[in-house]
């Protein structure tokens, strides 16, 4: 089965081409089925690969298609690498991808750009598979920017609305900033190791000493790329705006797959990262701070998708925190569980929006329990999973991260706990405001409230089951389980285990940590319950006065406005100044003035022709004298 790995990306590519090129001459139904069929096909192949990997002894397998770029000693081929890490990512991408394709058949039903939407989704899955399957950094980068392009197309899908286009452009450009760091990192890898294939790079990296400046620089540059793509602190502003795209897009791209590319990249280059502890601490700090920062913003947001977007940013912060403290498996585990429950939450929100006829403001919802029972049930499971209540998946993955964080540095654990408290609070706030209490929407909306069709609810149910049970693939020894995921991913991370020393906690401290975490969470949920369920408080509307702090948080700490003022405005001003003064008055005038200079000089010499014969003879004599004089001395 492994030899067929090239089929996995091929199916979505064919899907994209078929639908893309002939979209206007077949029915909506056909387009939807082709697209989802393609993803299903690649899901089955990746499932086969996964099973073969589980049983077979041979853990890594590369399949080379053809030679891509060769120039001097730099040569890179289009080649796919199958190993436990990439096969897990394959499963997540194609699995969640297929469910979302199924979901969007129903969700996008009455949209005129239906076929175009599915072609873009398939294009996205193709690039994401390329990113995950590549056996060298350049192919990963090709997938990296490809998903950036696909997200640009999908965010700006309803391109009539200029603010959606701005959001799409913003996403692309902020990603591009990160990608520049990523490219420079790749080039530095090539310069230091002479090749950019994972095998050669990690093989020769083992001999390098720890904290070597060049390796630290490489990892930092790659992390800049990860920050851009996975929306970490400085470069996260594009993700909340990316909610302008249709909800399945937000589910697939901005929750499950694309944003996790940065985490995958760090996991893939774990050898390099474990060779530079300084970068790891930076990653941990950025992760933790992002987790807390985004969670605080999430608390006061009133748009259902914005809340989920900020929660994604904060959950990604957790994954980077895991990577930072060396818990690579923990990071991947949380990535997997997060993919399930966040996709579930987004699709749930999608079905709510679908029912409410496009309304996204939770202050105008409420009491949807009666009208959308399946969505209510699945959304509840998702909310419990994300807040980390045992035995749901969120608990296991988040607990593992917090345990490793505590082992690395208790302060990180405190930040982690603060983040998860806020996560629990805003998730249940969202849940109660949408589903419990009385309906606050308009009569027209109330009349139209109906449960989503089966194509939308089946994926919800499947995802709910996954969100609930996914935790059991990584039950830690402490709780009597053998961490299946860790054993499965061992061959990928074994080198970094030799280099990186992570101290282990005694069982007692782990129990204590779990206990405190779960205890605090339950308190917070009860607090949220009575705040929004019992005396069902409604968040204030925009006009009435809010406390300064609340105002600050509600307006997302004005980060967008700050970036605009620091970067965008000065750049435009600079380009204006350059063009008006520097170019027209500066360089252009220099060139033109040389022209005028020549004309001016010729004007002065013109005056020599006085017309007086006497004057000419006089000049002749003078010049003869001068010539003779200079020749004779």
């Amino acid at each position, binding site marked *: 089965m492994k030899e067929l790995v090239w089929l996995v990306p091929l199916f979505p590519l064919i899907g994209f081409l078929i639908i893309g090129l002939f979209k206007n001459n077949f029915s909506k139904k056909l387009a939807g089925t082709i697209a989802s069929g393609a993803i299903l096909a690649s899901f089955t192949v990746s499932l086969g690969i996964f099973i073969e990997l589980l049983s077979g002894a041979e853990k890594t397998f590369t399949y080379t298609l053809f030679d891509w770029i060769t120039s001097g000693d730099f040569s890179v081929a289009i080649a796919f690498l199958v190993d436990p890490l990439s096969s897990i990512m394959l499963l997540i991408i194609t699995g969640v991808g297929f469910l979302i394709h199924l979901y969007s058949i129903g969700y996008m039903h009455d949209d005129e750009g239906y076929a175009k939407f599915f072609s873009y989704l398939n294009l996205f899955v193709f690039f994401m598979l390329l990113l995950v399957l590549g056996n060298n950094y350049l192919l990963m980068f090709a997938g990296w920017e490809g998903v950036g392009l696909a997200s640009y197309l999908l965010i700006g899908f309803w391109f009539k609305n200029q603010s959606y286009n701005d959001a799409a452009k913003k996403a692309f450009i902020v990603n591009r900033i990160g990608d520049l760091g990523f490219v420079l990192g790749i080039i530095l890898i090539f310069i230091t190791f002479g090749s950019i294939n994972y095998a050669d790079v990690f093989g020769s990296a083992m001999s390098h000493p720890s904290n070597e400046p060049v390796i630290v620089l490489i990892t930092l540059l790659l992390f800049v790329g990860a920050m851009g793509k996975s929306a970490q602190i400085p470069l996260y502003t594009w993700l909340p705006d990316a909610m302008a795209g249709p909800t399945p897009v937000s589910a697939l791209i901005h929750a499950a797959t694309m944003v996790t590319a940065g985490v995958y990249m760090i996991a893939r280059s774990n050898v390099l990262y474990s060779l530079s502890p300084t970068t790891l601490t930076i990653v941990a700090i950025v992760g933790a701070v992002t987790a807390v920062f985004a969670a605080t913003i999430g608390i006061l947001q009133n748009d259902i998708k914005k809340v989920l977007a900020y929660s994604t940013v904060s959950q990604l912060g957790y994954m980077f925190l895991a990577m930072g403290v060396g818990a690579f498996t923990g990071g991947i585990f949380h990535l997997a569980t997060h993919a399930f429950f966040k996709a579930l939450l987004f699709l749930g929100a999608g079905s709510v929006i679908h029912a409410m006829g496009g309304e996204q403001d939770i202050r105008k919802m409420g009491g949807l329990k009666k009208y959308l029972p399946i969505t209510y049930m699945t959304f509840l499971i998702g909310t419990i999973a994300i807040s980390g209540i045992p035995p749901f998946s969120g608990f296991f993955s988040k607990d593992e991260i917090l345990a490793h964080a505590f082992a690395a540095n208790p302060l990180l654990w405190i930040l982690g706990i603060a983040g998860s408290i806020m996560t629990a609070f805003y998730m249940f706030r969202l849940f109660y405001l949408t589903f419990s209490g009385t309906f606050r929407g308009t009569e027209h909306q109330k009349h139209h409230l109906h449960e989503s069709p089966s194509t939308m609810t089946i994926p919800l149910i499947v995802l709910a089951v996954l969100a609930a049970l996914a935790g059991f693939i990584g039950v830690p020894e402490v709780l009597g389980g053998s961490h299946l995921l860790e054993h499965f991913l061992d061959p990928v991370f074994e080198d970094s285990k030799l280099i990186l020393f992570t101290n282990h906690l005694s069982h007692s401290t782990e129990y204590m940590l779990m206990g405190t975490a779960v205890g605090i969470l339950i308190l917070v949920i009860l607090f949220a319950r009575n705040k929004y369920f019992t005396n069902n408080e409604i968040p204030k509307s925009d006009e009435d006065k809010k406390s300064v702090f609340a105002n600050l948080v509600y307006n997302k700490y004005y980060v967008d406005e700050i970036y605009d003022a620091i970067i965008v405005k000065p750049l435009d001003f600079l380009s204006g100044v350059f063009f008006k003064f520097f170019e027209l008055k500066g360089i252009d005038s220099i060139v033109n003035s040389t022209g005028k200079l020549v004309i001016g000089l010729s004007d002065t010499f013109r005056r020599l022709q006085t017309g007086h014969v*006497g004057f000419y003879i*006089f000049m002749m*004599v003078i010049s003869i*004298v001068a010539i*003779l004089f200079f020749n004779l001395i």
Partner: protein
Amino acid sequence: MTQYAFYFLAFVSILCALMVVFSKNPIHSVLYLVLTFFSIAGQYLLLNAQFLAVVHIVVYSGAIMVLFLFVLMLLNLNTEAEPQKSTWLKFAAVISGGLLLITFVASLKGSENMALVQKNPEIGLTANLGKILFNEFALPFEISSILLLSAMVGAVMLSQKEKEAKQ
């Protein structure tokens, strides 16, 4: 003996040349110029270039000076009132002329002062001159004839009365 003749003739020619330049009346300057030509002809004789001396007198004094006189008389230019250049200009002219003279003289200081020894004195005779003229210099000879022809045509054309321009 020839030295004295040379110095005498040299003195005469320089004096007359100065008079040509600084005499008020153009007629006087023409006559002084004729005198300089005669002194130069004398020099030729001293240098055994008899044929040349004769030709010189005939061509220069005879033809060109007569032409000058003729033009002067034709345009009755012998009026005293000739506009003068500004003194400053004259002064500058004299200075530059002097400068020119000094540079010529300066160029001489390098060469040793060898006496002018006539290798074969009879080259000045007409026979030898004729031989050289028609052997080596045949082509320039022909071209100078064309030159003279064109000068004549030019002179005639230029000084024609513009009859047709008048109507």
